[in-house]
């Protein structure tokens, strides 16, 4: 593995570096936990890596809270997410997803943007963020910003909407609008740690004082080429009481979720297993 490295320290330097690379093959490197594997599997010649790890830019690096919600910089690591009490109390789904990533060591370096831009159907934090209706903040070499819902950002296995002159700068999670939340991340795998999800379910439900669901986000991972936001299943829940989702209603809900799954069989599990467990797991959310 042989590549050139540019390490911009400021946003301006980053945009200049990107600009200079427009005619070349280049990749971003943040925590490198995906990139190095990628390059090992598909060695590339004449590659430049724009190293984001030394960037000192508030938007890229910090977690900030405002009236509308939470902004998490692209370079925030899974470990930093876990150290943020606001996430733990308001978005348990993200906290649990971050906690399920690999191991303590990997979590120290794995970034949120790396997890998203890798566009793996089994990305844990990505799945949670889709359930949270997160929005991408993307800038280009001319310092122009565009925003896009994360669910739309994913275009296929390892494919995103990011253009060559763009970089993911931060992620925005809208503020909870209801007092009660039911939020969590279920990751199915063989090992307790160091495991890539065989399938996953992220759910973030908000209910009013009377337990009526007013907002619902449910995403499923590793059962389709991209992480899926299960739109109709979410809509199905709106207006229902948290305690009414059982028996036939539960069956109905779970089949709505299953509609979004087109799992494959691979070394780790068969399509049958993924479908069966997805069905079983969705039915446990309201236990």
């Amino acid at each position, binding site marked *: 593995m042989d590549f050139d490295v540019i390490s911009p320290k400021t946003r301006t330097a980053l945009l200049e570096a990107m600009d200079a690379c427009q005619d070349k093959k280049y990749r971003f490197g943040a925590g490198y936990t995906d990139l190095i594997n990628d390059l090992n599997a598909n060695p590339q010649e004449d590659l430049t890596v724009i190293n984001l790890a030394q960037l000192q830019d508030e938007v890229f690096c910090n977690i900030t809270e405002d009236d509308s919600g939470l902004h998490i910089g692209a370079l925030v690591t899974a470990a930093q997410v876990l150290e943020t009490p606001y996430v733990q109390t308001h978005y348990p789904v993200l906290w649990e997803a971050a906690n399920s990533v690999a*191991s303590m060591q990997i979590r120290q370096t794995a970034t949120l943007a790396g997890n998203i831009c890798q566009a793996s159907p089994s990305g844990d934090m990505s799945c949670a963020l889709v359930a949270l209706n997160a929005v991408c903040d993307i800038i280009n070499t001319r310092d122009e910003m565009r925003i896009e819902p994360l669910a739309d950002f994913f275009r296929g296995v390892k494919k995103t909407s990011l253009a060559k002159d763009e970089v993911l700068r931060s992620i925005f999670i809208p503020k909870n609008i209801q007092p009660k939340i039911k939020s969590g991340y279920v990751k199915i795998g063989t090992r307790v740690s160091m495991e890539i999800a065989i399938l996953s379910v992220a759910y973030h439900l908000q209910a009013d004082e009377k337990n009526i669901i007013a907002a619902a986000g449910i995403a499923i991972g590793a059962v389709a080429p991209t992480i899926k936001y299960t739109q109709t299943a979410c809509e199905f829940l709106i207006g229902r009481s948290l305690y009414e989702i059982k028996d036939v209603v539960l069956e109905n809900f779970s089949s709505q979720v299953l509609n979004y799954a087109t799992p494959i069989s691979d070394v780790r599990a068969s399509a049958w297993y993924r479908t069966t467990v997805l069905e079983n797991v969705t039915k446990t959310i309201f236990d």
Partner: protein
Amino acid sequence: MFHVNIFSYICRVFKLTRFRMNKNLKIIGKSTPKLDGKERVTGSAVYGHDIDLPNMLHGMILRTKYPCANIISIDTSAAKALEGVACVITAADVDVNMIGYKRDHPILKSNTVNCNRDEIAAVAATSKEIARKALSLIKVEYEVKQGVYDPFDALLEASPKLNERGKGLEQFGNKNMAESFHYEHGDLEAQKARSKVIVTKRYETSRVTHCCLGTSNITASYSKLDGSLTLWASTQVPFLYQRDIAHALKMDASKIRVLQPIIGGGFGSKLDMHPFEPICALLSIQTGKPVQILYDREEEFLASPTRQPMVIDLTTGADAEGRFTFREVKIVLDNGAYTSWGATTPFVMMQTYSSLYQVPACWFQADAVYTNNPFAGSFRGYGNPQATFSIETNIDLMAKELGIGKDEIRLINANYKGEITGQGLHFKTCGAQPALEKVIAESAYKEKINRGDTGRYRRGIGLASMLHVGGGAKIYRSDGCGTRLKLDHYGYLTIITGSNEIGQGSETILAMIAVEELGIPMDKIKVINTDTDVKPWDVGVHASRTSFVAGNSMLGAVKLIKEKLSKEAMKLLNIDAADFDYKDGSMYSSEKEIKIDKVVREMHFGSNELCVVEYFYEPPSSFQDRKFMGDVSGNYAFASQAIEVEVDTVTGNVKVMDVWVSQDVGRVLNPVGLQGQMEGGIATGIGFALTEEMIYAEGKLINPSFHGYKLLTSMDMPAVHFFPIETYDEAGPYGSKGAGEAPLIPTAAAIANAVADAIGVEFFSLPISAEKVLKALATVKENQLV
């Protein structure tokens, strides 16, 4: 006559140990950190991967693209022309012998390739990158053939002969039979007739691998000046290895010096010599420069040994009282394309079938069959985990049918002290029953069994026991070990032992023995054990033998050095007779005291003698006869495990909650080391039971990484509650028995029984994956609906 002589010799050592067993011990039995512990945890340990010699080249191997093919042509010209490439070799360039236990394995393959590991060419270059590039430039033309991947297919008349050199037809009546073992005792038909219950099941075990964290590695340095070859190799059997390399390369064995750097995991994987090792030597011989070959993880999965997958057809019986009547078993082992030591695992398995619990009659047949799969090797437990899984599952089924407690049936049939089994194993001490009783009590087995949970999470508990050799195993012409001791002018002791340290902690035991017997402090003891040019002979690390055999050898040497010291000390102290106490670097006799270093100096300068001794120990075991009858080990280890699991019926995942293990170790030598062996063995056993499996499609490994191969991590470890049983066996140092392999042997069996208890479905194939569990639960549900 030969045996008788050795025997009387051994008896002298016996007396010595018996005497010691009654003494108050200073360090034996007290937790002592491993000698190499500090180096290991601080990262200063020098592994094979860290070796870097002047002008060293990097070797790499080109393996076949197809598991079964004829090779039409090999063109290495472009690789040879690449700058930085020092040499490229193929079978055509070397004059070598076949390797392997049956000498049926060419180091480099020329006409045909027979499994997906097969080595076709090797390069040595100035950097790894250049070596890799050179491999990509070698052109091989193949004629792809349909391979045979199922041993039962290979046994068919219509199957092609899979290993050209196989002698199966002449020796065993089938061209694809690589090895075959038959054993029997007792009157099988009579025992069948008196059985109240007979259970027949087919068991299947998967292919798993050692997953050493240190990947395979070797550095070879050949001197064109004197024709000597130095190998930095991670073998566990250096003297057999030296001979194997010599045979492979048609060299004089004594020209080969084997040095053993610290190794990152053995577990049996380094018992065989593998093709990459003579290949590395050949690259060095051709270039006259040192050459190093290091595997990456993928190559490690692809080309390092595995456990034998087996299909076991087992029938067992018991009478109305639950007493076992017979065992009849037919085993087919997937030998793979070539024959390794792995083909001899039936030798151990037959002991389990014949002698684990009391068995009046046994009929055993095991055939290792060539296929186009990779060849297996030896792996901690050596066939015993597979055998034990089948036996212990059948026991639960028989108990169920008879309406007897699963704990009770085991106690009724437990091995006992003084038992001479049908095969002739003599249990002079035996902790089988106490071990069973201990885990039954500690786990609250009686209260937990048949709980019948019905919710999402269902708990279950399972029992299993095991029998394994505890005092070496006489399979090679000698099962012995040599020791040299040297005391220097400053009172430091150097132990030069033939035995090897591969992480199991045996060198620490030897040092502890020296502290115990000679009163020399730990920090004045050095252990030299890594150089075949220096150390005396030993057969190697296997069969849980090292602390037992090397420990006894050490005790023999200690006796000799004490005689030497006493003689000199008596002279210096002017006394006629004395029985010295050794403490804090001094020797004491009544009121008199003298420092050991002074005695050594006086011995040298006064008597012109060196304080050096040498001793060779051969265990009191005997060879088995042609019918495999005989007392093959110095003593035997027994163990039981009770394991509680929790099955998640939503996902099919099985979580191991607690493991209670009780093992007859004779005597605990180093508690912390022993606990390490327990936990490590159990971890491997859990993986074998639940998650680990090498998955092949038409002979090609499709999960050669830790991503796809589910080795468990420390986060998956349950609590391990360990209760040693001390039976003080006369044969072992201070009464101890070998302990290393035992902890993993009953684990899969106990887990399988626990899962069956939790969900009411038995599993006859490993691993018991989440998917298998979920399928079984779905089937149960369907049947209930019908």
